[in-house]
């Protein structure tokens, strides 16, 4: 027997990188590789990794918004968690009349996430940000144990510059304001539900997730200070958005149920599962409360934008009761619109 003692020395990680490992979040070489090879390219500007990014003096008021994205499944008809994370925050900035100038992107990754999925999602973040004309300037990546995350969670935080004319707030609704919606509701939430594990649906529904800041710019150009409130009716759906505005502005809102556009397959999904489409989450539309004298101009401007060709007038702001939203039914009766209580569950009755 020949002995080569040297050949018996300590081996070291020869890691395959087909899946995320805990070590990818350790702050060491594996992490540097992950950042350098997978995450940074295309997403962040080249240069040294800094603790914080520098934004040159924006010269005006800013909007700041953050949202965590935890959607399951992470790929769904019409989109994925990456683009959603960009659109969601760009839209929240837009809802204050702001144009996005910088995004911070923070990932929590589950050990075992296929690297190919991370690449795909990261590319989607990069592409969505580029499409929105906003730079991702800083980010963070953590890895947690398998079973301590559902693949990937993304928190995006956006900084926006508020258009000088804009004074948009949930508290600004005034009696007589027109309530506008930029397009059909319910597509996003039902698209997600239709592919959610266990429900077993094949869908003809795709999420309408998209950025709305250009639409908002067009609306502000047309309506100026007449644009009182902007809101993207995400979680909680149209009902929550309207009730929140009614409460914040201490007004009533009356909506004509039949005027609210709902795509046919969305109606079908809601019928089948016993859901209220007004409680279903949206990602690609907004509601606007606009002074009556500006409403026509704003609605016309909206309809020139591809993201709002089907914009509609759906209701009016009333004197109250404060915080109360009512729906005028097709039969002409009025019902109080209630907020979803807990989560949405399929019903049998």
């Amino acid at each position, binding site marked *: 027997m020949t002995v080569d003692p040297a050949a018996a020395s300590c081996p070291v990680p020869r890691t395959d990188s087909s899946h995320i490992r805990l070590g990818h979040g350790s702050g060491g070489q594996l992490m540097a590789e992950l950042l350098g090879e997978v995450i940074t390219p295309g997403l962040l500007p080249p240069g040294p990794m800094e603790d914080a990014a520098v934004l040159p003096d924006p010269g005006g008021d800013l909007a700041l918004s953050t949202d965590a994205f935890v959607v399951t499944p992470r790929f769904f008809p019409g989109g994925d968690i990456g683009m959603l994370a960009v659109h969601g925050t760009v839209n929240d900035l837009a809802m204050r009349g702001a144009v996005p100038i910088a995004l911070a992107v923070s990932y929590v990754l589950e050990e075992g996430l296929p690297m190919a999925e991370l690449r795909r999602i990261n590319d989607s973040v990069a592409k969505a940000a580029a499409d929105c004309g906003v730079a991702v300037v800083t980010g963070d990546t953590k890895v947690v144990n398998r079973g301590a995350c559902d693949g990937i969670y993304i928190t995006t935080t956006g900084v926006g510059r508020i258009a000088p004319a804009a004074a948009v707030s949930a508290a600004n609704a005034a009696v007589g304001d027109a309530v506008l919606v930029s397009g059909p509701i319910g597509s996003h939430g039902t698209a997600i539900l239709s592919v959610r594990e*266990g*429900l*077993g649906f094949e869908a003809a529904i795709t999420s309408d997730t998209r950025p709305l800041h250009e639409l908002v710019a067009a609306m502000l150009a047309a309506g100026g200070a007449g644009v009182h409130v902007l809101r993207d009716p995400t979680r909680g759906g149209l009902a929550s958005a309207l009730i929140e505005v009614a409460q914040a502005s201490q007004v009533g809102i009356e909506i004509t149920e039949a005027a609210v556009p709902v795509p*046919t397959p969305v*109606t*079908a999904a809601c*019928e089948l*599962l*016993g859901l209220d489409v007004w409680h279903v989450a949206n990602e690609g539309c907004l509601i606007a409360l606009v002074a009556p004298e500006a409403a026509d101009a704003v609605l016309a401007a909206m309809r020139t934008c591809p993201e709002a060709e089907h914009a509609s007038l759906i209701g009016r702001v009333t004197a109250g*009761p404060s915080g*109360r939203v009512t729906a005028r*039914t*097709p*039969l*002409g*009766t*009025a*019902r*109080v*619109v*209630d907020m979803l*209580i*807990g989560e949405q*569950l*399929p*019903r*049998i*009755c």
Partner: protein
Amino acid sequence: MKYLDEYRDPVLARRLLSELESTATRPWTLMEVCGGQTHTIVRQGIDELLPHGIRMIHGPGCPVCVTPLEMVDKAIAIASRDGVIFCSYGDMLRVPGSGGDLLGVKARGGDVRVVYTPLDAVSLAVANPDRQVVFFAVGFETTAPANAMAVKQAASLGLDNFSVLVSHVLVPPAITAILDAPDNEVTAFLAAGHVCAVMGWTQYEPIAAAYRVPIVVTGFEPLDLIEGIVMAVRQLETGRAEVENQYVRAVRRTGNSRARDTIDEVFTLTDRTWRGIGEIAHSGLRLSEAYRHHDAETRFPVEREATRESEVCIAGEILRGTRLPTDCLAYGTACTPRHPLGAPMVSAEGTCAAFHTAGRGRQATLEEQ
């Protein structure tokens, strides 16, 4: 959607309502048995459009609501066990038991899952041979064939880890019990279309005859409901008491024989307690002897605890119009829409909730209304 949209046409609804207006000459109290019908009536405001004197009472036709407290507590106890995957239709998850609900069990670590169909629970049992899968089989006659098929399926697959917690209830005994009550005001019934799609309406014929009460098998869309009301009022006005079928597109007199046969094979009649009503003889289904192996109640014996409902709630009187919400000691304090003690505080349409949402205070009295 075909067969839905055309039955929601407001123009045709108006025609039916005018027909009703010209038909009704006296006050009548109708009960729609089914919660699905109640949902349409309240949400669309159909009750507000009825001629003066035509009053709708909302029946006990919600299998979720009538599932007895004790059974909800049992479900919670079983779902809390290690190694159990507890499957349920979504609406049972929020129903409060004595000390919480199934969503709370899930939040505390229980494996509680929503299924769209009971066959999904069977699939879960196949996929998790080392776990016990328990399905909460609630429902009326409409749901019984589906739940029965799941049990048959599990039995034919020899699944030892699949069982059902059965709390099925039947409509005709409930109607009879309502009619037997000394203070009954119901003069006609809209029978539940989907229950009759399975069962047909032959069971209702002796009831209509014996109690001299019109029964109209009715669908769920606005036109269905208004037409059903028109048909019932027309019987009342002309002194008839028959079973009629408004929901002709889906219901035949003898129902669905295959589905009924499967119910009969898997289940057998039993006495059952209805939440808010009490025990009604032969008003429920339990597993038949042949399928007892899949009975969750025998597999997971649960210590029978004393169950309790709120004592302060005066829901019955409020809903019969004899007292106001503001007369209730709990109104606006212990009882709010988010923490209801009784049914009328439950949804925006409930009397107490409507009062509360409208900001009416305790000082308000009947006179001020």
